[in-house]
């Protein structure tokens, strides 16, 4: 077998192995939770949801659920203990924002300071729609004369065969 043939065979084998379910790397979560899961399913659900809402400040693009940073672990413990202690979600989020600011929340609160942030998508959509409408209008004003339209564009379009 030629060198190229061997390489091809190896690549095929690799492809097959990675596709076979038994051989692919097990999809384990990266975070190892040292604590046992909360007993109460409702509490566990709240915990799981809250740790996805809180930003890890050490590694800012991760929620504390996914982070192994010591601070993230401490914050998870804090949230867990507060849930067990009977705090509401609101109280837990307030506790964290009082210390770390709104930045810890992945969903920024709706306050006058964040109006622009929340409304930006709508504003951009409206602005884009307005521009679109203007362009359509200006096109519509032009005479729909085929010859004139073609003469405006002396270069043939890319996909026309020469």
């Amino acid at each position: 077998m030629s060198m190229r043939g061997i390489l091809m065979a190896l690549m095929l084998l690799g492809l097959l192995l990675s596709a076979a379910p038994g051989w692919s790397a097990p999809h384990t979560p990266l975070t190892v939770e040292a604590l046992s899961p909360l007993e109460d399913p409702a509490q566990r659900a709240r915990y799981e949801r809250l740790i996805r809402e809180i930003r890890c400040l050490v590694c800012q693009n991760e929620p504390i659920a996914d982070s192994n940073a010591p601070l993230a672990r401490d914050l998870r413990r804090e949230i867990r203990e507060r849930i067990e202690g009977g705090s509401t979600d609101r109280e837990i989020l307030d506790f964290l924002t009082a210390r770390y600011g709104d930045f810890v929340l992945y969903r920024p609160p709706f306050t006058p300071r964040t109006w622009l942030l929340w409304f930006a998508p709508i504003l951009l959509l409206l602005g884009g729609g307005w521009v679109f409408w203007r362009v359509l209008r200006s096109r519509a004003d032009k005479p729909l004369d085929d010859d004139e339209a073609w003469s405006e564009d002396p270069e043939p379009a890319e996909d026309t065969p020469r």
Partner: protein
Amino acid sequence: MWRYLAAPALFIVLLGFFLVGLFRDPTLVPSPLINQPAPQFELPQLLDPERTLALSDLATGEPVLLNVWATWCVGCRQEHGMLVDISRSGEIPIFGLNWKDDRTAALRWLERLGDPYVAVAVDDDGRVAIDWGVYGSPETFLLDGQGIIRYKHIGPIDQAVWEREFRPRIAQLRQGDS
């Protein structure tokens, strides 16, 4: 006329946003605790675990610093010499919060590099640090005489930071007190 200006104007505005964003450090998170009373704590001291250090020990009527440090923290090693200098100059008392550290390592660190702290509280499980909104080390809090947090510096203190951020604020606090 305006239609020829609109696009460049928009571009320049965007460029402005990007330029500002480029020179801002996204890892600096402003603390909501500024101008708030410092969170209460009472923790064992590093040198003598039998004794405790509490917030009331920090509210001495004079401004003080609380420096969050650990031996695993590179920035702390960087700024340590500066802290020793500040402490020697007697400009302001420095208290320490040893954060999630190994006691033996922390003691050896102070022995080898000098001890700039009036006293060091040991926050083994990081609860007090969370209460203070600490998210990295080093962090240095400036407290006024009444135990209100007036400023927090994130990252190592060097001569430039000291002169730019701390000295004027300390002077201002002292003026306000008198």
